[in-house]
């Protein structure tokens, strides 16, 4: 299945270069069902742009969908979020270049178009060809996206090839991460001390202000915050943590958006990236936590790398490709 997709992608890429034709471009036309000309034009533009961007993202091998300013306007906030979430489940592309479909006007003035062919690259052969349903608001912006399947079936399609054993192992990692979080909330320094490998690599990011006076004029016009990273040993980290536990009457850590990634060669090494909300009596912050966990000894997994980065600097969210993940460390 993956080979077929690779060939399809490679062919598209080749022809794009060879013929100078933009084969990633999809043209979508509404045949019928939308009487408002402006809305019809909006629906056509939004759909064509989105499908073309999906194809282009696959062809160029980018991990994330990037839209220019004008294209961003074709989505509502919810619609954009939905697109990113679907992409996170599976990269997808539209295998045809010209689509004509009816628009379906809903009672509240919104519109849907259905039957848009889409290929889910993470699904197996039986399930990779699916149909997309796109929902628009009254201005023709994309507000929601659905695979024409029930949600749980969609997940089935994406996760069809995962074995029970792999599922069990990955749930064991979620369990370990939850125990790790519990240890902070309980201020259980012994537990934390036990789960860190003795030679663990610990990296903590800190937002620092740049002294603008010391910069040249070009630099002065740019952003004035940057993240500085500090490396510490397990011993240093535990000593600081003890002080932190002592100075706070309570700590409430919340983990969110957990992503689990297995090392491609080592079955027992996993990377976990998550959003950490630190709430304590004296201090609160939000940041990205990355843990590299060694499961060689299943009963006693150990943390080999821990990194923390602030979730934003210069008033903007930390770009996803700057967040530490397993592929940034060589083992």
């Amino acid at each position, binding site marked *: 299945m993956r080979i077929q997709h690779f060939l399809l992608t490679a062919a598209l890429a080749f022809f794009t270069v060879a013929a100078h034709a933009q084969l990633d471009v999809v043209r979508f036309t509404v045949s019928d069902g939308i009487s408002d000309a402006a809305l019809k034009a909006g629906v056509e533009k939004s759909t064509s742009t989105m499908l073309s961007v999906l194809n282009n993202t696959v062809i160029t091998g980018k991990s994330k969908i990037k839209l220019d300013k004008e294209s961003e306007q074709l989505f509502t906030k919810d619609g954009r979020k939905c697109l990113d979430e679907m992409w996170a489940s599976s990269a997808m592309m539209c295998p045809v270049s010209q689509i004509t479909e009816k628009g379906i006007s809903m009672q509240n003035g919104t519109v849907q178009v259905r039957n848009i062919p889409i290929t889910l690259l993470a699904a197996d052969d039986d399930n990779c060809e699916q149909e997309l349903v796109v929902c628009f608001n009254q201005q023709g912006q994309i507000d929601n996206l659905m695979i024409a399947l029930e949600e749980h079936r969609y997940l089935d399609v994406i996760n069809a090839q995962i*074995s029970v054993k792999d*599922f069990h192992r990955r749930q064991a990692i979620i369990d370990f991460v*939850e125990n790790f979080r519990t240890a902070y909330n309980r201020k259980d320094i012994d537990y934390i001390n036990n789960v860190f490998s003795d030679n663990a690599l610990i990296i903590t990011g800190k937002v620092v202000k740049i002294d603008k006076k010391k910069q040249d004029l070009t630099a002065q016009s740019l952003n004035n915050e940057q993240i500085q990273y500090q490396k510490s040993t397990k011993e240093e980290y535990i000593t600081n943590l003890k002080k932190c536990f002592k100075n706070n*009457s309570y700590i409430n850590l919340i983990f969110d*958006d*957990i992503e689990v990634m297995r090392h491609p060669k080592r079955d027992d090494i996993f990377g976990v990236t998550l959003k950490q909300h630190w709430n304590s009596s004296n201090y609160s912050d939000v940041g990205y936590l990355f843990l590299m966990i060694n499961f060689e000894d299943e009963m006693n997994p150990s943390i080999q790398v821990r990194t923390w980065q602030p979730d934003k600097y210069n008033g903007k969210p930390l770009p996803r490709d700057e967040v530490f993940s397993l592929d940034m460390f060589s083992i």
Partner: protein
Amino acid sequence: MNIKIRHILIVALLAFMPAVSAQNGIEIKTPERITRMLESIPATGIPTAGQFRCPELSGTLQFYTEAYSGVTIQVGARLFSDAVRTSYDPVIISFVERLWVELLLRKTTASQSSLLKEYGVRMVLGGYPLGSGSFKQLGQALDVINNLSSLSITTGGNEIDMFMRDKAGSTLHIYIPASRDLLFSYDKKEHEEIFINDMLNNRAGYKQALPESTVFTNTDNGLLVTGGECYMIDSLRNDVFYTKDKIIVFSSEYPEESMRNLMMSAVDLKDAKNFYLDITPHTYNRDIKGFRTTMSRFMGFVQQQGYRFYTGDAGRNGDKCQCLLAMYHPVYNYLHILSVSFTPDQLESGKEETIKADLSTFIPQHNIKNLFQEK
């Protein structure tokens, strides 16, 4: 401002928070969160009106505590009638009443809003979250609760929606993240200890539960199967296997299907009662020892907990078959996993058989974004 608050607190319980010792390395204590809450309630001055400076709070509000095995496990503000408490999910009701105490202990609306934000809870009155628009003070929400004309609780997703309407037509939504950690007063360690303690003391019997569906599909190995609903992956399902004559499969010829039928409680008690589980718990508290229980007793216990059951075949390891039982709680969004390892001949020996099992409990599911990422 005429403030009338009557805090009736069983102060005596503050002084008594004994630990209950149990077997297997489990010691049931008052949850740390409850201890912290009790410590933060002023020990003097109760029930002095205005003690918690919750402006414009009208009517009376009663604080209460609840105990389990002799230790305090809940502190709450009595918001709801007994009729409401018995008709709706007690965990959600208790959470809201506990949250209310925490909110009342905060001195300003801003700090109450900040606590709600920390917990990810949204309290929305007439379309406005606390501290915005016309929803200026917490007391306004209490007025709706005190004059309740309707209440509904919607569960099943990542957020619980508690919707209330009062007799004057004002509406109050409390949106709560569907997370075990938030809804229960226990943290994972404490909850695991209580769960295992309850399991060891359980006397509920096994009940055979046959699927309602009569729609069968064929399997590759000539059996019939009903169910078909899966959890997260395609191969973890609520399937029950039948022979072609529509008899529940339980034989050494089909060991994995038989074990999965047993774990779905589909087999007859006479087939289930010979099996003992030698369980190794994978818990936060590593002092909890392994324990032995009958399969029927284990299933009898978990059958009562409101889980959805899914089973899967984890493949063979030598002559050992390995199967998995996932017990998912759809309201509190957590998972228990029982993984068993056995040989086919154990199924039909007709005598007591011990099956090795590993148990992981309270694995959160609400905060997973992508479990199956590959590099």
